[in-house]
């Protein structure tokens, strides 16, 4: 390479608590090139971009722009050095105008008063340069997602950056909007900017990239220069690791359905025409990328989300809409987000576990002795470790909290247990225990529907794996075709509609 890279990173290490998100990553971004970062969820792509743009401080390693090393104290610092991030979440203030957002933090002032005429003129220039036909006085809330994304980019360009980092910019966009965005990225490239691009959709990367770096578990597992990259190579590099299989015992189809879902959709369009079934004793895994509609599917089945059309049957009986009906029909759900959707942080371990207990009696009085006697076997079975049941649940480790929450769901006596990312953010020992228990529950005749982003987990525990993308099931994998490669390919859309027996 004759050209010098605009941005280099060397030996970047970043830890969150005890887990390593980046384990010494090198990266170079060249002017006039788009560099795609590829990897599974949690491989460290987003963390790397956040380190480069000053959002996170690396624990070790150096970032240099044009050969000058920088230690960024926040994104503003990075922007001054010419490195800007277009983030996944969006950082515009919806209640303010486009112009105010574009110039936020540096509105032109005279004697302490904002010079509005100059604000609108400068903003209009910026919008012009980004080829955006929007009035600077429009409120951001009135824009559609694509326009917001473009405003976000225009704001970044206002800093006249040398390096632009895109973190999953297309996740909230439709196909036509994606094309517009990709054209914009091409434009930046021809202007000589160095661009880094993260996307879960391989086709988008192939359209714009000159260089690829594959990340796996915080390490770089593959590099490729040039547009002639092979899909198979990317998938192999993403997956790569040796899998230790704690496989669930194979089973013969029973021919009876415990749970049957017939073409349900949700009101918001996150779930579209999904049909599936779970037999007694069967564990059905649901794979896919974040945002593919998996959580929304479980919530719709559980009645926590408005269902539009279709039918849900438990043991052949239709389930009416609503959480209480779903629970009464024998459905149980352990939610994805412990903190916001499940824990009662001010209450004890006991009260958290006993939340679903209700004895149908004339007088609605809690009987602690009965409650305790009912809870105890499940808590023991889940191997919950705590000083006493009366201690606050907030003091437990994530793994033990999760065990309590699974015990809570089981105390509702479900016939079908739905688990959403059952082992997210918990230690290995607890993970193992939960795996064993899921298998044991299925063996006792329960039906299990499990969403997971950890593919080894899906492969180890599931009898069948369904892969979701954009709200629908795109692949149904069972037996030998049920591989990590197949799941990744279906989830990213590398291969459309994989059907295997």
């Amino acid at each position, binding site marked *: 390479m004759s050209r010098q890279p605009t941005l280099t990173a060397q030996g970047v290490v970043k830890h969150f608590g005890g887990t390593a998100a980046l384990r010494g990553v090198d990266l170079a971004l060249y002017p006039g090139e788009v560099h795609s970062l590829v990897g599974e969820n949690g491989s460290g792509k987003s963390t790397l971009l956040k380190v480069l743009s000053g959002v996170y401080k690396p624990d070790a390693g150096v970032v240099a722009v044009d050969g000058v090393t920088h230690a960024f104290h926040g994104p503003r610092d990075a922007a001054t050095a010419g490195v800007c991030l277009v983030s996944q979440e969006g950082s515009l203030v919806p209640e303010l105008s486009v112009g105010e957002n574009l110039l936020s933090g540096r509105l032109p002032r005279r004697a302490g008063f904002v010079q509005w005429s100059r604000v609108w003129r400068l903003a209009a220039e910026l919008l012009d340069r980004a080829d955006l036909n929007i009035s600077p006085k429009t409120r951001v809330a009135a824009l559609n997602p694509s326009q917001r994304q473009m405003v976000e980019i225009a704001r970044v360009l206002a800093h006249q950056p040398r390096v632009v980092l895109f973190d999953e910019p297309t996740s909230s966009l439709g196909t036509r909007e994606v094309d517009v965005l990709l054209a914009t990225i091409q434009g930046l490239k021809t202007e000589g900017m160095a661009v880094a691009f993260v996307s879960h959709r391989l086709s988008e990367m192939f359209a714009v990239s000159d260089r690829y770096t594959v990340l796996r578990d915080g390490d770089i597992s593959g590099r490729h220069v040039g547009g002639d990259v092979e899909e198979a190579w990317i998938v192999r590099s993403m997956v790569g690791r040796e899998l230790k299989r704690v496989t669930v015992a194979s089973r013969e189809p029973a021919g009876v359905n415990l749970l049957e879902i017939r073409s349900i959709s949700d009101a918001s369009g996150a779930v579209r025409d999904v049909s599936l079934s779970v037999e007694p004793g069967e564990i059905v895994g649901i794979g896919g990328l974040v945002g593919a509609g998996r959580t929304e599917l479980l919530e719709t089945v559980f009645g926590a989300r408005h269902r539009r059309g279709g039918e849900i049957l438990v043991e052949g009986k239709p389930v009416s809409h609503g959480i209480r009906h779903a629970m009464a029909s024998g459905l149980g759900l352990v939610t994805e987000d412990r903190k916001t959707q499940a824990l009662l942080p001010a209450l004890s371990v006991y009260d958290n576990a006993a939340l679903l207990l209700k004895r149908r009696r004339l007088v609605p009085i809690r009987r602690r002795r009965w409650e305790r006697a009912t809870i105890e076997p499940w808590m023991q079975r889940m191997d919950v470790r705590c000083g*006493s049941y009366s201690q606050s649940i907030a003091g437990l480790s994530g793994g033990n909290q999760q065990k309590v929450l699974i015990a809570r769901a089981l105390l509702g006596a479900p016939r079908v247990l739905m688990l959403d990312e059952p082992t997210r953010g918990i230690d290995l020992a607890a993970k193992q225990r939960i795996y064993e228990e899921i298998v044991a529950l299925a063996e006792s005749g329960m039906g299990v529907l499990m969403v997971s982003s950890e593919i080894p987990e899906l492969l180890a525990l599931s009898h069948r794996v369904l892969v979701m993308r954009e709200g629908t099931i795109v692949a149904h994998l069972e037996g030998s075709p049920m591989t990590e490669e197949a799941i990744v390919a279906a989830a990213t859309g590398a291969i459309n509609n994989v059907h295997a027996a």
Partner: protein
Amino acid sequence: MSTPLSTRESDSLVVPARKPSRSSLLSSITRHPLAPLLALWIAVVIYFWITEPRYLTGSNISNMLQQNSILFVVALAETVILLMGAVDLSIGGMVVLIGLVLLWINHGIPSVLVIILTVVAGAALSALVNGVPIGGWRMNPFVVTLGTAAVFRGLANVFTGGGNTKIINNPGFVSTLANGSVGPIPAAVIVMAVALLIFWALLRFTYFGRDVYAVGGNPEAAALSGISVARVRIAGFGLLGAAGGTAAVLQAGQLSSVAPTAAVGLELTAIAAVLLGGTSLAGGKGGVIGTSVAVLFLGSLSNGLDLGGISSFWQNVVTGFILFTAVGFDQLRGQLLARRTRRETT
């Protein structure tokens, strides 16, 4: 952070009950969330006991309790409201409006029935106009009760022909309940004790009580556990109305009249007592015992200041200052205790 892989012997779920040693007993007392408030209350009582000879006499104590009976009952219900993550500003106006209901129905029917009907009317009114919008339509409790507070008091003024005090002609048992006594114990104190017992048992021993804590602590988790958040909130505001009805009975008995200008600011004093008693403004944490102690503490303080001839304006300043410092101190103490606990467990 990570515990060694399953060593079955060490899996004891519950630490066997040790006989509490003296130091751990002491530490469990000092660590109790109500310890600072109790200590402060005792200090106040001792101070006035020394400085005011009339302070710890039977007549003064029952006087003090009677004076605070309305606040006491109302604050118990306000505790439930805060526990379920809501807030109420309407109770003052409600007490006055329900007082008028009592006045209207108090003609030719037994006063026991009058009292029951008043309490039921309060419950129905609050469940309907506060509970349904907040629980059913998910409106903001601050906004709803700010509105209903104005409507209640406004209506009370309208119905009394512009704020005239209405004399109760036939006080009967209503008066006995507020001013009479059973042996040496004032009837109002019995009302307070019964109310406390009901609220305490409700929160501790019923599924409704558990649901109140769940809804206040994490409404989404509560809903996903099959709890009807709307129903819990409507019932909570119904309870508030029942307490408002009881307070209206006590007030009517004490004054032998109904005045639309009475109970001004009652809601804020009640909220202050609830917070002082350790219930979280964010919901899901606290209880009625703390509220009771806080009301009695505030009552003992203002009673002592009264005896000492301190003006009620200064009393307001003192009460406000205490609320501010107590809540601030509580926050600091919570942080310190959490830090210490963390150090002990790691």
